């Protein structure tokens, strides 16, 4: 019987042919944790599981990215524990402060490749679907058990198939496509489901990462793009991983990329989506370009193209946080960084930046931020009285120029 991509990957990882609805135990190709969760994972491993030596240190990865470099004594001490742990356990895939965001590095460093299964202690681990890997986020205890055994259990998800047709218009980003979907699907529309994106050939791997990352905001367990020539240019695709015509999909949707326009999610909901052009009465204090969702070189270039030779509006703080050191190096090499700095940007160390409201751009009561990140919940970036609007790097740049939310096609 034909299988969806997720069913194929989970069959390969479990050693038997499985379909949606079944419980499976899978061998993990990669399990990762991050600075803010690592101390809890170590606690479970040491105190609850009594684990002295990890059986598969080569499958593990640890990233210092959420509060990197450390912002206070508590976070510094958590990071000390993480460093001691990776040394003790012989985990060579360790990425310290300044390397970048875990999800970006997982792909960039080839810690995940097509057809693999990877889990992470961060909800946006769905990002790996961009290269046709099955990536999903889990909590402390699941991650600790995965560190301890190299395996995890899960229910094989039903799949929703999304067929993309056409091409995104100029100054419209994959982020706008995700907001377009969210407006329809809502924040819980794909709960427990896998999403399969077909017709992605006009989207770069970077855009596919944006897309896969945002499936988490629709409740999805994974979001895979059908592998194609671009995927193969990134890494080999296993022979067994291919679309099977009679695979059973729970639902099918078609999206015409040409009809997508610049969109914005209004606080405090990711699915309260309106056209960017309808919000020109909203003035902003801070504009943030970065994160696992939109902090890649393509995103920085898209913002720089709009800001080239211009300055951000008086009173607007533009923060740019590259998703990795390689992204920052690329932006230095091609002049993107100089354009952003000339426009008045403050550039932060590669990592998660202010996305989680712990450092490097925390918002005060009454402040408004336009962000290329993935969540606009109350209190997400600081004061619960601050407001966060989500959109693309292009809309962020146009908004920084005008000081109010602006359709990037209008500047």
């Amino acid at each position, binding site marked *: 019987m034909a299988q969806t991509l997720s069913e194929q990957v989970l069959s390969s990882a479990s050693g038997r042919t499985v379909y949606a609805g079944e419980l499976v135990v899978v061998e993990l190709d990669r399990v990762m944790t991050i600075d803010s969760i690592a101390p809890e994972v170590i606690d479970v491993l040491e105190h609850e599981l009594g684990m002295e030596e990890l059986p598969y240190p080569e499958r593990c990865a640890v990233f210092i990215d959420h509060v990197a470099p450390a912002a206070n004594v508590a976070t510094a001490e958590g990071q000390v524990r993480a460093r001691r742990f990776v040394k003790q356990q012989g985990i060579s895939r360790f990425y310290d402060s300044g390397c970048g965001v875990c999800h970006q590095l997982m792909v960039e460093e080839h810690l995940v490749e097509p057809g693999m299964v990877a889990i992470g202690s961060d909800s946006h681990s769905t990002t790996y679907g961009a290269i046709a890997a099955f990536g999903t986020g*889990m909590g402390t205890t699941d991650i600790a058990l995965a560190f301890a055994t190299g395996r995890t259990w899960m229910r094989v998800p039903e799949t929703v198939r999304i067929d993309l047709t056409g091409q995104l218009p100029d100054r419209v980003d994959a982020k706008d496509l995700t907001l377009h979907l969210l407006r329809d699907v809502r924040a819980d529309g794909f709960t*427990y489901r896998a999403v399969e994106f077909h017709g992605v050939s006009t989207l770069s791997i970077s855009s596919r990462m944006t897309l896969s990352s945002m499936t988490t905001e629709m409740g999805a367990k994974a979001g895979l793009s059908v592998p194609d020539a671009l995927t193969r240019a990134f890494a080999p695709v296993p022979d067994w991983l291919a679309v099977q015509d009679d695979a059973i999909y729970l639902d099918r949707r078609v999206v015409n990329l040409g009809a997508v326009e610049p969109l914005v999610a209004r606080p405090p909901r990711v699915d309260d989506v309106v056209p960017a052009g309808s919000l020109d009465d909203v003035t902003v204090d801070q504009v943030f370009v970065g994160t696992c969702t939109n902090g890649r070189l393509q995103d920085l270039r898209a913002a720089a193209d709009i800001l080239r030779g211009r300055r951000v509006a008086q009173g607007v703080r533009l923060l740019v946080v590259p998703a990795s050191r390689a992204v920052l190096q690329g932006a230095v090499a091609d002049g993107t960084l100089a354009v952003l700095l000339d426009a008045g940007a403050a550039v932060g160390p590669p990592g998660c930046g202010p996305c989680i409201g712990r450092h490097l751009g925390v918002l005060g009561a009454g402040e408004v931020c336009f962000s290329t990140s993935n969540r606009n919940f109350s209190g997400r970036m600081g004061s619960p009285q601050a407001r966060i609007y989500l959109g693309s790097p292009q809309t962020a740049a146009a908004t920084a120029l005008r000081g109010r939310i602006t359709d990037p096609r209008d500047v």
Partner: protein
Amino acid sequence: MNRVWLFGDDIDTDQIIPGRYSPYMTSEEELARYAFIEHRPGFAPNVEPGDIIVAGKNFGCGSSREYAPRALLRCGIAAIIAPSFARIFFRNALNLGIPLFEVDLTDQLADGDEVRLDLAASRLHTGRGPIELPRPPAFVEAIQREGGIVAYYQRRGRFPGESNGAH
């Protein structure tokens, strides 16, 4: 008797506990104090062990932070009842041994209602008579019976869905 704490739809993990109050930023001991600290400041000081949360759809959406359900566990929350849960929250709560019931009671119960949960019978006794709660799938009940996934794994030496003697 215990009380009902009623919440709306799409309660996200930043509402349950903002990232700034994570054990990583503060300390594990203080976790219970920060439950709903901004969304509902009256919760943490007044919640009693055995109280239950009744909420709308998609409870626990957002971050994978397990300290969100752990904060509720430390407050003594005996069960969470909602028509649907976000998947990572569901797994985290299950792993910690917090009973979850997937049913919408937001129209039948009010905030502050006095109730008594009979977990063994999946029944909620209320001032207007008992409400039968839907029993979770067998593998979920098995994890709940063990008190969480770590105890489950340690007792059985395997994961749910894994046959005896595998690996």
